């Protein structure tokens, strides 16, 4: 070997050794990581709600990481379920197969949530539901792995029923919902409220979730003489039905529904078509509390393109619950410890204090009503539709 070759070999070996040393140093210095999963409809027909929820969830995690409180970095494995069962199940499997995953939070749609729950239970990874409201998702069989910080469909429909049936006194109802699990739950919940007041609806209709032409339903509503229409579906059906009612000349009625319709996408049917739509939203009016206002300011300061939706605060709250549980688990959280910590924890966030009952359902239940006024969602009590206000709902 010539002197030149020896020199070259020595140089290469030194480079290799230096590389190994630096690599080893980096490995030594790498920050420990704890992973949590997030699932929601980030694209698809319910994307307005899902993407905003994702933003809020990531925001809470980012704030926790910035605080320097944890001896590890919290990483989020994000999955877009596209409001579809099979996509959600594949996403759930992707999450549980990740190493270092200790918990997950997910779902705005009840169908994808129900389909994915067995995956989390089998993997013994705790899942905190932030937005799906079908009552049966939390039950004795799913506890302790499945908990929910959002209210159930029944809990959402009660305050709406109290307002429109007891306070406003509507009696002539036509009820519409989709045939999916979300629609099913709401249909039964509102019908039960009517039955409890001895009211038989003048008509009822269940429509497939991909229905776009609801003119036949509009004709039925017209012919029934109903003075109020309840729509227990998401924005896709809810907005089309309201628009087609408006275009079909059915304007002098009350049109109300559930939180699934309270998204910015609903407003795309136009200010005139959407005007006067009344929906119930879970949670508290954020503007009325200091914590809520701080959240609004923080969220809006991030420059997200998706505005805060009905369940955005719940996704933020779910992240706070998981962060609080991580806090309770010490330096090396595990899925097992997180399961116990979530169920037995007590978290005070922007929606009040959340604790869970024996089947993993939140005990922090609150809801308020919203109305579309001049193309924007406004809390009923702050709108011109409030009792004694300048505007009135139809059908009275």
């Amino acid at each position, binding site marked *: 070997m010539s002197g030149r070759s020896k020199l070259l070999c020595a140089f290469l070996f030194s480079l290799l050794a230096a590389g190994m040393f630096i690599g080893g140093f980096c490995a030594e210095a790498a920050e420990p990581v704890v992973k949590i999963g997030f699932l929601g409809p*980030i*694209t*698809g*027909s319910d*994307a*307005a709600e899902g*993407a905003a929820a994702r933003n809020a969830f990531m925001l809470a995690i980012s704030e926790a990481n910035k605080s320097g409180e944890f001896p590890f970095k919290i990483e989020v494995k994000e999955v877009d379920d*596209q409001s579809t069962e099979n996509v959600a199940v594949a996403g759930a499997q992707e999450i549980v197969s990740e190493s270092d995953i200790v918990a997950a939070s997910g779902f705005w749609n009840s169908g994808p949530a129900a389909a994915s729950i067995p995956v989390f239970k089998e993997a013994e990874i705790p899942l905190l539901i932030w937005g799906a409201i079908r009552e049966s998702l939390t039950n004795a069989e799913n506890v302790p792995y499945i908990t929910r910080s959002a209210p159930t469909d029944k809990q959402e429909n009660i305050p709406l029923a109290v307002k429109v049936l007891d306070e406003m006194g509507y009696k002539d109802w036509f009820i519409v919902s989709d*045939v999916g699990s979300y629609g099913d739950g709401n249909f039964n919940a509102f019908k039960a409220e009517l039955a409890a007041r001895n009211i038989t609806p003048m*008509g*009822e*209709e*269940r*429509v*497939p979730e*991909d*229905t*776009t*032409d*609801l*003119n*036949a*339903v*509009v*004709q*039925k509503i*017209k*012919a029934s003489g109903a003075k109020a229409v309840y729509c227990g579906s998401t*924005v*896709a059906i809810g*907005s*089309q039905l309201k*628009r087609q009612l408006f*275009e*079909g*000349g059915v304007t002098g009625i009350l049109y109300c529904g559930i939180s699934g319709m309270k998204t*910015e*996408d609903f*407003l*795309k*049917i*136009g*200010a*005139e078509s*959407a005007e006067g739509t009344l929906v119930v939203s879970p949670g508290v009016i954020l503007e009325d509390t200091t914590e809520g206002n701080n959240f609004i300011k923080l969220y809006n300061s991030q420059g997200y*393109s*998706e*505005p805060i939706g009905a369940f955005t605060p719940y996704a933020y709250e779910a992240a706070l619950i998981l962060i609080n549980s991580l806090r309770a688990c010490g330096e090396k959280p595990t899925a097992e410890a997180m399961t116990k910590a979530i169920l037995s924890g007590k978290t005070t966030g922007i929606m009040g204090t959340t604790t869970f009952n024996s089947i993993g359902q939140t005990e922090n239940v609150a809801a308020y009503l919203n109305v579309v006024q*001049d*193309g*924007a969602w406004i809390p009923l009590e702050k709108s011109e539709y409030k009792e004694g206000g300048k505007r009135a709902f139809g059908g009275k």
Partner: protein
Amino acid sequence: MDMFFGLAVSAILLGCTYTLVAIGFSLFFGVMDVVVFCCGDIAIFGSFAIMGAYVASQSAGLFGILPFWVCVILLILIGAVFCAAWGLITHQFSIKPFRNSSELMPLLSTIAMGTVIKEVLGLLFKPAVNTISTAFGGESAVTVVSGRNPQGFPPLLLPGGTTNARYLIIIAITAAILLLLFLFLNKTKMGMSMQAISQNKELSLMTGINVSRVIIITFLIGGVMLAISGFLVGSYQKLMSFDDGAMYGAKGFSAAVVGGLRNTWGAVVGGMLLAFVEVFVSGYIPRGTAYSSIMAFVVVVIFIVFKPDGIIGDKSVEKV
């Protein structure tokens, strides 16, 4: 009676949207003996192309320079260019390579092409939604994540007019397209070449008809028809989803089968029949909406079993 009349109007409107897609199926099947399953997706792509072009032309101030109706025609033409392009891409990549394969191959590959078209829309369509939103009347700004969100179709059909007037225009446009297509197929050399190929491809070749050229022109005409269909669907439905194509494709194909797959008038009859079944089942049967599509497909099955050539389809006779 009011309800009957209202349902009939709804059925005619829905039938119009099915008919134009069904004619797309008939045209392609007639000339190539291939069921181009992505017709519905191409039509929906057309409506999204019109939406995108609307936003771009608003930003460019086109509506301030040209009369409104000229702008609308330009937008439809842009949609037609996109649809025709997808038609040609479909022909080139999903049909031509399988010319000598089993007839199932182009069927499957056009289904796959439909998925491609749908996903391209979902992934790439990013309109400046604030503009579209304000086009409805200046409500608060609405932001959209991607093409996978529902999109508001701009008010291009008689903005400010009554709903009934808009419905009448939809019916009138469909009728005008049918008349133009009739004249084209029966009074022009190209149209008659298309019919000749539809009836007997081998004989057409022997008489000197340039079959490849006719096929390409069929895709161009079919693309234009599907773009107009997309425009009408958007104007009727107002809120569009990137995956609406599968449903319109299934309904359009069913309509074409019921009417007679090779016959353009069959597509009209089939489209209207399906729409009337759906709307009237929905209207007159309690909770019928959940079953309306099922009933429409039951009609298709009945026709496949008892009248496979369709209502006004030609009887296919195979000589031994």
